[in-house]
């Protein structure tokens, strides 16, 4: 495959208005020169006649018990109904449900057309759904991204997966009536929250990580100030994705090389 034929598509997520897919698109083109376009929500692809089929599949991909791997179950009526509403209104915020990322990946793959599944196509699905993968410690862990085919980037994951300062959870437990904002004020240490513009800025790094994964380059960086750093805490996320500089020297160089390869 000629790398220059590579086309990156970002499928927008209407449920996360603060995640600006146009800005992500401009950023990827500007940084890597990879041909990038945006498309409507992938949920728009669900054929009207197949809404029930896909509702069931989405319901099947939910994590019912965080400590038990989803090996398949028969979703109940309520769970299917919940998914049906999300398909019918892709701008609906998905609250409280964790999905098995690998099962979601299979559903999204079904929604790509033949051309989009071809080798020179690199699809990124933006979603409001919280995704997780089952770890070696026998429990699910929330994630920002799944670097598969298609790639999945979760805006909810950006807020929920990297842990907030310990103090936050302590305060939250001791006073359930306090809002997040109030606790944030009292807690030292910043974190990215829903509705913030920083969501778009932070997601840029995960897009680049996905591209590096596709190009088979080792993509986690030891340098905690670099966009390729694997952040486990919100403070680390902010340091890696929001604060300057963007990249360590090594990755700065690699990005330059990629840009050259795609623009020549």
């Amino acid at each position, binding site marked *: 495959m000629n790398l220059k034929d590579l086309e990156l598509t970002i499928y927008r997520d209407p449920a996360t208005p603060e995640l600006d897919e146009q800005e992500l698109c401009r950023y990827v083109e500007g940084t890597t020169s990879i041909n990038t376009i945006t498309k409507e929500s992938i949920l728009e692809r669900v054929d009207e006649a197949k809404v029930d089929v896909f509702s069931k599949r989405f319901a099947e991909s939910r*994590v*019912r*018990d*965080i*400590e*038990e791997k989803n090996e398949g*179950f*028969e979703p*109940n*009526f*309520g769970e299917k*109904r*919940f998914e049906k509403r999300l398909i019918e209104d892709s701008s609906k915020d998905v*609250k*409280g*449900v*964790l999905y098995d990322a690998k099962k979601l990946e299979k559903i999204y793959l079904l929604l790509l057309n033949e051309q989009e599944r071809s080798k020179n196509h690199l699809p990124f699905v933006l979603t409001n759904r*919280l995704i997780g993968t089952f770890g070696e410690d026998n429990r699910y862990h*929330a994630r920002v991204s799944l670097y598969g085919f298609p790639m999945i980037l979760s805006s*909810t994951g950006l*807020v*929920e997966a990297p842990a907030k300062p310990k103090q936050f959870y302590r305060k939250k437990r001791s006073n*359930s*009536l306090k*809002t*997040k904002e109030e606790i944030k004020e009292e807690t030292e240490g910043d974190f990215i929250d*829903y509705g913030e513009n920083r969501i778009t800025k932070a997601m840029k790094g995960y897009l680049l990580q996905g591209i590096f994964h596709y190009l088979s380059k080792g993509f986690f960086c030891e340098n905690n100030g670099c966009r390729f750093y694997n952040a486990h805490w919100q403070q680390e996320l902010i340091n890696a994705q929001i604060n300057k500089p963007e990249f360590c020297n090594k990755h700065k160089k690699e990005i330059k090389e990629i840009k050259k390869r795609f623009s020549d």
Partner: protein
Amino acid sequence: MRAFRKIIIIIKNHEKTEKQKNCDKMPKFESAGEKQITRAISESFRDVFEEYAESDVIVVGGGPSGLMASRELAKNDVKVLLIEANNYLGGGFWLGGYLMNKLTVRDPAQSILDELGVPYEEPEDNLYVATGPHACSKLIGSACDAGVEILNMTKFQDVVLRRDNRVGGAVINWTPVDALPREITCVDPVGIESKLVIDATGHDAEVVSKMEERGLLETSGYGGMWVEKSEDLVVEHTDLIHPGLIVTGMAVSTTFGLPRMGPTFGSMLMSGKKAAEVAIEELENF
């Protein structure tokens, strides 16, 4: 449908005590014999029971969410029967934390307090404090005013199923009968029918559990939900869980494996309201 509602207040004129003799100038109640009283009670009860052997919606559980759902439905001219296992309505709504009769709600649940005419204070921004007995009695009064029929001391025992296992009513018995061992009582329950049933039984989620017991419904295990994202997952997930069955209030927590929370009365009221909205939408398509 409420035409048969009769209000009969007959208070027996008891034998006069010394004290009462001194109060002969006070107004007297009409005298009525024991049999008239018994007839009045049984006739009135029978009328209701007969009429409500079939209703639009049966709400199981008379706590804040069940009362709120019933009230909203009745206000929309839905024929609604509320069954409550205790001899009192309100559940935990009479009291706040630590047996203190103050309860707190957060924005926007104060709008419901406004609707019910419950006075409250705002000690902090968006945090409202009301008095339990005041809020609870207003809610009960408002539900009754709206036309909710209530059977208390009535225990939900099982679901009535229609074709395709759609929930279509409840099997009920008197609470004292239900509480006694089978060997002592052999009072069979009765079935009442409805288009929809709302499970508002709190943490026990009795209707949902019965469905699970029968193998008709499988719910999440504990810890199946990501709780950080929303302050109000109970309201968010108040919905039909099975054809004919809506789940509301703390029963939502049990059904979806949400962690137990403190007395979040605002959520209970909002959840009840949402359950009614879902029910009305369902009834339109019934």
